[in-house]
């Protein structure tokens, strides 16, 4: 699905990301962990062509992201609140996003039904603009916006942050379900080691812009990760 080749990003003297080679196969739930400044958001922004790399390229389904915009058709993402349109109601936002991907209004509303539990009755039918929702509810809108149109690739930056405990559990189940049922490829970053090991098949640890660990998730992964981050103290 995704291939990175000698991808790097340098601001002035400082190299914030430097990845020689990374392959993410289709259908994988890929977890990205790392401390602040490790380069997680930079990596996602590069994958979405939101920033230009200093060297190297990102290939998404054989399309070089830096050269051709064809990847947009099968990629959905939610990185931060800049992906929300504050003056729309959540429903209008979903119709907008869905519409761009060729969904009719009715399709959007049908598709929304499967997320009613996830919203916990706090998002839909509120007659409130997204900008007036709480941070947690805004996050829910963004996440559902990226899942709604069933694109084969979904990129989520810290989806668990700002969510209440119940919704965190719901999100975990939702992601696991979607991954197994539809075979979607998920790229998820998180600071919460437990969540990410529970959801993802594979964990990559970024440290100061470099890949320092890359392994399939197993029963011991959580403890190993905790040990790794304890060493950084």
């Amino acid at each position: 699905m995704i291939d990175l080749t000698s991808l790097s990003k340098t601001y002035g003297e400082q190299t914030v990301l430097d990845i020689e080679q990374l392959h993410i196969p289709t259908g994988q739930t890929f977890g990205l962990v790392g401390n602040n400044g490790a380069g997680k958001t930079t990596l996602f922004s590069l994958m979405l062509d939101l920033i230009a790399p200093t060297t190297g390229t990102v290939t998404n389904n054989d399309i070089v992201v830096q050269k051709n915009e064809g990847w947009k058709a099968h990629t959905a993402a939610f990185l931060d609140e800049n992906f929300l349109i504050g003056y729309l109601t959540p429903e209008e936002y979903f119709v907008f996003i869905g519409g761009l991907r060729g969904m009719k209004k009715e399709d959007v509303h049908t598709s929304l039904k499967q997320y009613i539990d996830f919203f916990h009755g706090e998002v839909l039918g509120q007659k409130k603009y997204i900008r007036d929702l709480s941070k947690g509810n805004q996050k829910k809108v963004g996440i559902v916006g990226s899942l709604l149109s069933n694109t084969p690739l979904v990129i989520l930056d810290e989806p668990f942050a700002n969510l209440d405990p119940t919704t965190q559990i719901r999100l975990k189940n939702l992601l696991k379900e979607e991954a197994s049922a539809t075979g979607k490829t998920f790229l998820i970053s998180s600071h919460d080691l437990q969540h990410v090991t529970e959801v993802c098949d594979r964990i990559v640890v970024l440290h100061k812009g470099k890949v320092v660990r890359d392994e399939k998730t197993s029963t011991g992964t959580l403890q190993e990760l905790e040990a790794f981050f304890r060493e950084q103290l």
Partner: protein
Amino acid sequence: MLQHFLYLQWKSFTRGAGFATGLAQKILMGFAWIYFAAIFASLAFAAFWVVQDDLGKDPLPFVSGYLLYGFVFWIVARYFLQKMPIVHIQPLLILPVSKKRIVRFGLLKTTVSFFNLSNLFFFVPFGVILIQQEYNWPGVVGWWISIGSIILMTNFLNIMLNSVDRILVLFAVLLIGVYALQYFEIFDLTAWTAPIFMAAYHQPLFCIIPLVLLGLIYQWSVTHFKDKLMLDGGTIQPKAETHRAADLSWLDRFGRTAIFLRNDIRLIIRNKRARMSVWMGVGFLFYGLIFMSDIYSGSAMTVFAGIFVSGGFLFGFGQYVPSWDSSYYPLMMSQNIAYKEYLASKWWLVVVGTLIGMVLSSFYVFFGWEMYLAILAGGIYNLGINAYLVLLSGGYTRTPIDLTTNNKAFGDKRSFNIKTLLLSIPKLVVPMFVYYVGVLIQSKSFGLILVALVGVLGFAFRNLVFGWIEKIYQEEKHKTLEAYKQKNT
């Protein structure tokens, strides 16, 4: 304490999005300042010598008479043009700084603006001429102090009124009404107000009255904002607007463009900042009235006016494409969007806005056909050429617009500023030139026909120009994304 605030201010200025990239524009702004300074200074000379020698009147009472218009006009102009400086308040609130201090600094900052300083360029030379011409100098100083106080009063009033559209309309109507009364010689209000302004000249001590009033208004603004300096006070964070539902399903017939059109219409309906562009369109409908006088007949200024009458919305809204979408630009850039559809939506809005302007301005027919024909020609030029040009320059403007913080700290209203005015010049000079050439070759009507023809020609190149703009938007994408990240400048 003041130096801390100034430090913050300086940092936000030098680290702002537009600083490094916009150096050329800054230089241009510098020239604009010099230009305006020269204009105002020469206006001061004219106000004295022309009035004295040509009209045979005493300049001081004459100018005093027209001050009333000046002030009311300033209030209206400020509302549209004055860029409210923002103090970034929220982080300061929990620090050991008194609220009064924060507010005072914010207010102080507003006094350093074009709208206050430009007055100096007029009143200082005018005052100097008066004293040189042996008007009694304490009188001139008193007159000068009272006018300065009134100018600052309008400054503070404007800040407080900033969020109330209705009051603006009231002032605009007042201005037009009073002028109409005087124009048709029914009632001359200036005959009543001139002596009031002259009082400070005859008795300099009277200048204490406006000074005291200024103090009161200043105190009023301080308390007004101090009480509102709460997270939910409407000064820092906007109050939640009530939900305005809009059934826009009739737009569906436009196909994929409808997806964007729906959004753009909601953008305008639901965001004060965007609504301003509509108000601008309405305001500029009356712009042509200034050029009704016979001296403009056949001059290129009629075309200049003609373009603005129908183009208020075009300039106010189009200039800021794609900045209107700045707060969610990363979303737009990662969606499956064809720039063409995105641009087409904005283009349609601007075109429809211009057409409505052309229809509404038909009342100019009452004042004679020449002006209305100029408006129609200018309108066609707007539709054919300027509708592209605004989108084009928008691609380079890169001023992030934060829709959600309309009322932030004294109201940040950058919906229309001097910078964009400068960018408009190429859009105006060309049609004026074309008209001028037409007049030279044949006649006024031929000039107008030429202007309209250029506009019609523009339509033919729609797809070509769209492709061109698209390319620029694509090339500028990363720079634009980068600039939009810095919202707080």
